[in-house]
């Protein structure tokens, strides 16, 4: 039996650490979600200490479920994650196909392409929302202003001027508004994670069976049918990996949301929890439990999908 002891001992520290990490804070969250617990209350000072006597049962959960912000946050979380997944997979595939042949400077192209992946999320958000997307001072504002003055200039032209007079003045878009800031978040995260998808698809494309492709060419298969029937099935597993890893990271997206849309209503679950937690710990914890449930649904789905193939 001694030889089963050693592998167990080797795994023990990792398993123990993760077990404590999972169980201790999570059980506290469960406890807090079942009691009335606020940080400041002049009327009910007894609620400011966590104790069993403030038992509220499922009241916090009911409060959260009846709160419109919660549903907005859920819808927004899913919308943001799904948009990013679709965009990065499509862009990643297109770019990987594009650079999957040798040409002058391919090494440099790869270095340039991968760079956004290394940018820290906080910098990514600050950079995009200020210097690129700002409607007045950012490149967006400057570009829109330049277009407008160009069209203005063209209006004075003899005959063509009548045509340009019909053109509307362009309005820059403010990405700090509730309706648009989700798009800003999608844009910046897609920029950061497309390189990741490109790298994985590229690695996979390089191992594609060339002889099979050549046979298909000889049989007169079109480029499109070669792509659909040979390349896409070959990429199924890398696509699954890209989707899984990104889901893990994007469900807990925070820095981008906080910097882009502080307080304007464009929230996701982690951000909403943060908002509640500024005072109402009970509600924040209940929302946290919902977030755990949502993450688990996604996790089960994803791990089923690829867990088996990863073990082979």
């Amino acid at each position: 039996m001694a030889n089963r002891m050693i592998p167990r001992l080797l795994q023990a520290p990792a398993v123990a650490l993760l077990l404590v990490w999972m169980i201790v804070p999570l059980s506290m969250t469960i406890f807090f979600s079942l009691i009335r617990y606020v940080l400041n209350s002049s009327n009910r000072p007894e609620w400011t200490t966590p104790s069993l006597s403030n038992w509220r049962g499922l009241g916090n959960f009911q409060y959260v479920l009846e709160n419109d912000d919660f549903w907005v946050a859920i819808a927004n979380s899913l919308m943001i994650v799904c948009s990013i997944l679709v965009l990065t997979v499509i862009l990643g595939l297109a770019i990987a196909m594009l650079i999957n042949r040798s040409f002058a400077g391919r090494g440099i192209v790869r270095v340039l392409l991968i760079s956004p992946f290394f940018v820290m999320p906080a910098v990514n958000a600050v950079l995009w929302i200020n210097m690129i997307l700002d409607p007045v001072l950012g490149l967006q504002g400057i570009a829109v202003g330049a277009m407008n003055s160009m069209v203005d200039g063209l209006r004075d032209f003899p005959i063509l001027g009548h045509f340009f007079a019909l053109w509307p003045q362009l309005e820059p878009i403010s990405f700090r508004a509730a309706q648009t800031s989700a798009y800003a978040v999608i844009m910046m995260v897609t920029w950061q994670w497309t390189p990741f998808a490109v790298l994985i698809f590229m690695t996979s494309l390089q191992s594609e069976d060339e002889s099979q492709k050549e046979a298909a060419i000889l049989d007169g298969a079109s480029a499109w049918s070669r792509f659909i029937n040979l390349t896409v099935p070959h990429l199924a597993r890398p696509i699954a990996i890209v989707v899984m890893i990104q889901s893990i990271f994007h469900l807990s997206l925070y820095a981008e949301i906080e910097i882009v849309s502080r307080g304007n209503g464009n929230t996701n679950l982690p951000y909403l929890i943060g908002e509640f937690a500024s005072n109402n710990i009970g509600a924040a914890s209940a929302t946290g439990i919902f977030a755990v449930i949502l993450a688990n649904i996604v996790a089960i789905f994803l791990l089923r999908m690829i867990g088996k193939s990863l073990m082979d």
Partner: protein
Amino acid sequence: MAAVTDRSKLGHLIWPALAWAVAIVFFFPIFWMVFTSFKTDADAVKPEHLLFFTPTLENYVNMAQNYDYWRFATNSAITSVFATMISLIVGIPAAYAMAFDPSAKTKDILVWMLSTKMLPAAAVLYPMTFLTKNFLGIYDTHFLVILVLCLINLPIVIWMLFTYFKEIPKEIIEAGKMDGVTTWGEIKDILIPLAWGGIASTALLTFIFCWNEAYWTVRLTTIDAATLSKLIEGNRAPEGLFFGRLSAVSTAAVAPIIVLGWFCQKQLVQGLTFGAVK
């Protein structure tokens, strides 16, 4: 036949040009950040100085003097290095046991480990703050940041190492056992030299994730153990008043990682695919 050659010649020009264009578009925001960091705050928001301006190092000097950049950078470096080292020290033996001595439960343990990564940080933030502030007294210490960085990256470290170790023929390890090598000897003298490339890419990726981490490091620190993420979050200027300064701080925060990433591109590609894409 001639038509076909013409078409493919054209293709030889168009595709590389398109690839270059895409690469430049993707790199542009980073270039723009570095470019803006050499403008004064006033020049940075003037359209007439969009491309032509007198470059200045003022922002970098200012940053070193007023923002205490080096303290944040040192904290980032210390916590990332230690967290990476510790997660490797914990992860290598675990992944070794899972890869070469798997039991019926190994797969479940691996999947469970990855599922802890899906636990939303926000859900357990308050308990963590509560515990570390009120009971353990380790809030805003390097120890806490290192511990948390370790814990959030451990699942990925073990997964990556596991996929690399599985590539090593079992016979090599078995042969070591026959020769009476101890477990420690097997890890040190056989496994680590054989899987060196995989371990290096795991370390690199973990280091990058630690450096860029922005949720826990911002929320579990105030001053003493605050990292570069905290510096950026704290200094985002409202409505573009300080584009020059902001660019300089941002450039200084991401430059070390981008340069590191460039040098280790090949290993990273391997690491990122979790060894699952060949």
